[in-house]
């Protein structure tokens, strides 16, 4: 009696899950964090947000506050200075959250690999859902990465259904 959701018919729960998943795929709000990038990747991300590529048609919206965001778009290698900040921004985001690492540096440390002040790629500090390689990746590549990430959500849904 006390546990109402468990008492719901299975079809309902499934429908609600589907609705939630649909809304997540439909409306990924992003926040952009630069953890030590050379700014090349950031310029490409800004280019992605310009009217020419218009990501609002996918529902992607750049948010200022980590509390509002679903997707953390990281650029650049993680420097020792940025490590704690990156972690904090990640922790501030409410669940469910996703991380996209944009650029070779964010993937592996890139040209900054092995520098005295660099920890390495983003995945050394926080879990990453999608890597977008390139130095810097073109806006098309970034959009493709986001779409692939959303597509993986869709697949999870299908897997849940069959499983």
């Amino acid at each position, binding site marked *: 009696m006390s546990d109402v959701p468990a008492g719901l018919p299975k079809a309902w729960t499934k429908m609600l899950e589907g*609705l*939630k998943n*649909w*809304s*997540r795929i*439909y*409306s990924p*709000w992003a926040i952009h964090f630069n953890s030590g990038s050379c700014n090349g990747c950031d310029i490409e991300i800004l280019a992605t947000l310009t*009217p020419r590529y*218009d990501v*609002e*048609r996918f*529902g992607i919206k*750049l*948010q*200022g*506050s980590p*509390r*509002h965001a*679903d997707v953390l778009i990281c650029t650049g290698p993680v420097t020792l200075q940025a490590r704690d900040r990156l972690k904090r921004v990640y922790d*501030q985001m*409410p*669940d*469910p959250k996703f991380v996209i690492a944009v650029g070779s540096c964010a993937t592996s440390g890139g040209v900054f690999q092995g520098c005295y002040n660099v920890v390495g790629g983003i995945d050394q500090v926080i879990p990453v859902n999608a890597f977008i390689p390139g130095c810097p990746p073109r806006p098309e590549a970034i959009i493709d990465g986001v779409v692939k990430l959303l597509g993986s959500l869709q697949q999870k849904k299908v897997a849940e259904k069959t499983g």
Partner: protein
Amino acid sequence: MSMDISPLLKMLVFPGGLTLIALGLLYEYIDRKLVARFQNRVGPRVLQPLADTIKLLAKEEVIPAGVIPLFFVSLPIIAMAGALTAGLYIPLAGFAPSFSLPGDLIITVFLLGLLTICIGLAGANTADRFSLLGATRTLTQLFSYEAPFLLALLCPAILADSWQISIVDTSVTGHVWLALPLFIGFFVAVIGLMGKLELAPFDAPEAESEIVAGALTEYSGRGLALFRLGKDVELVIGITLVSAFYLGGLSNPLEFLLKTLGLLVVVAALQALFARLRIDQVVGLWWRIGALLALLQLLIVVILKGVIL
């Protein structure tokens, strides 16, 4: 059934509750789409606002350290309730308001203001400096546009000899649109509406490039969804009010759609046209120009009414 369920239906389905929320989401979509088209973009999909809302509702709600949890949780609900209640007094979709009493114009404007006050308080409740700045700006802006906006809405009310929305609405129906003779008042009302909704030139309180997300920076999930929904509802109510008063009344659903959507196009165009004003510019604009214009219009209305009638 001996119990009369029609007030309940009125509150939950039409015109309160569901209809208002659905219309709010639709109008938010149209507004965003229009702005996008004006900026030469494709713009969002039709169900975008709905998806945003559902997603936010399904998200985790973080209650940050340093807030009073009771206020943090209840303020969005109060804001949403205020906005929805205001919907009961307006001629939504061209039908007569479901509740009508003398002076409900003031109640409606106050209930719309309640939303803004809640946003301000919500910002002031958190310990985050961006929220505090946003809250200060929200409340400062509230004090600057509220008076001129109300004065602008009072002009048609004075002509109709009543502060009751439904009476004003029926009295202006069939006459020449008040926006033509009272163009100053119409101008102030439209700009005031944009200030109230914190749309583009007046969006200093949530300037994402300066203060993250303003008063709502710390809100995630449900609270944010409710505030956004409240804003959407406020958009519908504000546009309905202004078009009922200044665009010759709303007497049927078709007229309602045409007039409110027409007004929405104007609002969206203004949004796309102007860059953000600084908060001191906003206050200066309202008190130096807006309030004076509204008073001038009021004076003209009162004098003309005395001379002609």
